[in-house]
């Protein structure tokens, strides 16, 4: 097939889509803004629900894009995107021009900037960290406070930047609950003497084996789950975090001193995705993610002919869903060319 496809974004969705397109015989250019492909997987040590090492999935994806049909452009991004009668003309920030017969947008998500929830003090109080920061600690094999000591009391705040009108995000990021459960177990594994508290609104365990993991966290690891939103975090004179929560099951306010608080940052439309949307007129929804033509049966198809979506640029998804979504995007691309020929 003498067609060239540009895949924008070299994370899980982009890599899977590029690999599948190459397998189908297309010439592919994969454009990734970071120096390396892999996206958010590069920041995660182990994956839910089975806690496998993320490098296993990364290796699978790297292998997938090792085809000679794929040209990988890293450390650059699409600056201009025009359509013409022959397809699309794209130029990257470093001046490379790419012609495309079709485009797969796989710009993914950005983690919610936790400092926007000012009341939690991320960036101000040393031992308030994010789920991503904790994964980096897991990678190093040590969970430590700013002063080098091991934390004994650790909390997790769910829904940071998700289901939150105040920051303009009404939607559920879907993965933060199960990530908190996974990380809570891992903290207990690393620090058997520690006590762990998860502060949640609802436990949304809507994936295969999630509920089992949640049960394991309680029964095998003694993680405490408290239903209630954290209202504020401050710091005491001995650098403990003073946390205020409303326990909505007990129906009373709580105040607790913790050594470390982990913020489960939600997912937002990526900055790169937003720029492409502005530039091209690709439709976005109320949640600011790309809005596919139909959420049920045309979930990869955009409002511009020849441009397709793959992965979390359309909504929060886990890795399994992202890979499936990328594969269905490829299927739509193939259909598009088949129908064009007809």
């Amino acid at each position, binding site marked *: 097939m003498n067609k060239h496809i540009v895949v924008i974004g070299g994370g899980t969705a982009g890599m899977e889509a590029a690999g599948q397109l190459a397998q189908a015989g297309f010439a592919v250019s994969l454009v990734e803004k970071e120096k390396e492909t892999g996206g958010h997987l590069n920041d995660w040590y182990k994956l839910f629900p089975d806690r496998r090492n993320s490098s296993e999935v990364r290796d699978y994806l790297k292998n997938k894009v090792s085809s000679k049909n794929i040209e990988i452009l890293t450390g650059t991004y699409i600056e201009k995107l025009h359509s013409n009668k022959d397809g699309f003309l794209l130029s990257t920030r470093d001046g490379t021009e790419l012609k495309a017969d079709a485009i797969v947008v796989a710009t993914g998500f950005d983690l919610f900037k936790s*400092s926007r929830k*000012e*009341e939690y*003090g*991320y*960036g*101000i*109080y*040393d031992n308030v960290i994010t789920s991503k920061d904790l994964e980096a600690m897991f990678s190093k094999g040590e969970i430590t406070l700013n002063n080098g000591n091991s934390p004994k009391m650790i909390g997790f705040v769910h829904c940071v930047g998700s289901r939150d009108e105040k920051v303009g995000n009404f939607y559920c990021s879907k993965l933060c609950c199960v990530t908190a459960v996974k990380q809570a177990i891992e903290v207990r594994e690393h620090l058997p003497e520690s006590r762990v508290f998860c502060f949640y609104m609802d436990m949304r365990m809507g994936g295969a084996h999630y509920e089992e993991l949640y049960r394991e966290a309680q029964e095998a690891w003694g993680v405490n789950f408290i239903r209630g939103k954290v209202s*504020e975090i*401050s*710091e*005491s*004179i001995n650098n403990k975090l*003073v946390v205020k929560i409303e326990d909505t099951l007990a129906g009373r306010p709580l105040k607790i001193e913790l050594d470390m608080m982990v913020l489960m940052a939600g997912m937002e439309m990526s900055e790169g995705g937003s720029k492409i949307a502005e530039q091209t007129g690709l439709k976005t929804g109320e949640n600011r993610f790309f809005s596919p033509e139909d959420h049920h049966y045309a979930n990869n198809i955009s409002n511009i002919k020849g441009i397709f979506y793959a992965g979390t640029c359309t909504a929060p998804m886990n890795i399994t869903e992202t890979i499936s979504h990328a594969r269905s995007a490829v299927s739509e691309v193939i259909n598009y060319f088949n129908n064009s020929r007809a």
Partner: protein
Amino acid sequence: MNIEGKKAIWSEYQKEIADDNYFYVRSCIRQNFFPGSEVAFLKIMREELHKDVYEHPCHTTCSGIGYHGDVVPVETAMTVVARQFALMTEAGYQNYIPSCITSFGLYTEVLETWHHFPEVEKKVREQLWKATKREFVIPKNLAHASDIIFKFRKEISAKAKFKLVNKNTGEPLKVVDHIGCHYAKMFPSKGIGGAEYPYVLAGMVEEWGGKVIDYPERRHCCGFGFRQYLIQANRGFSIACSKEKFKSMQPFEPDMIITNCPGCPMFLDRWQYVINEMEGKRYGKNGEGIPVFTYEEVAGLVLGYNPWDLGLQMHQTDCEPVLDKIGIEYDPEEKHNTSIYNEKTGVHGFVNV
């Protein structure tokens, strides 16, 4: 704690503050609680900073206390606010400065409401016309009086005779800054530094040589919280709130508290006295109380004004320990001397600013 993180937030919450020509409206209650503060503000503005500040004799309550105490309906409060704006318009001013935090909160809320619901503004204009035959122009600039002192904190510093520094140790005084709830908690973008880490008082303290304490209960209400105090049965909650704050700040050994709300200095000051009477407990270092000041009083002290002219003898938690640390001289005999009469102000004994 990472101060850079706070600075990043402070930089996001800046607001426009007019340079001159202010229409100043006093608080209903401050003149009874801390009578020197508003007088000191006017003196600083007019005599130190040479600004034009106008006061209208027909200004009334904004009705904010009644509104937040659930006894004045919002439509009434809006019409009262509209009348104040009409007074400003008639006087030829555009920059509105309330002395009271709750007034500032109410004015902000009313302007935001009118911005989003122009039909409400239209209705209020009709009501005002029917009731008073007055019309108004929306203020070009609305700022709380503490915003103005914040804006000119460097100019005040340049004229300062004292710094918020312990003269014996050379160390900055440790200062608790307490912000009135209605300053920015309702509309964070309207407060300098926002709602979570307000900078309006912290900026003054830093500029004048002190060091601000970040203690766990800094966001907590002072204890006034209208329904806590105005409803007599709830007064236990009021003192309990204040006590929580004192307990939380005590380990940091603060030298003083600075406030920008009418009620906060009153309750933080008076409840310390009451707790000491009830439980024999004080929260300052060495068993002393923690003196509580308004920002105008602190500005006046920095500028070298006589503490008794600022009305500091009205405080129930003695302010002398702070005066001694800074090195401000005062005559203890004059503290409660009511024989002094000021012809200009018609006041006996104090507030001769």
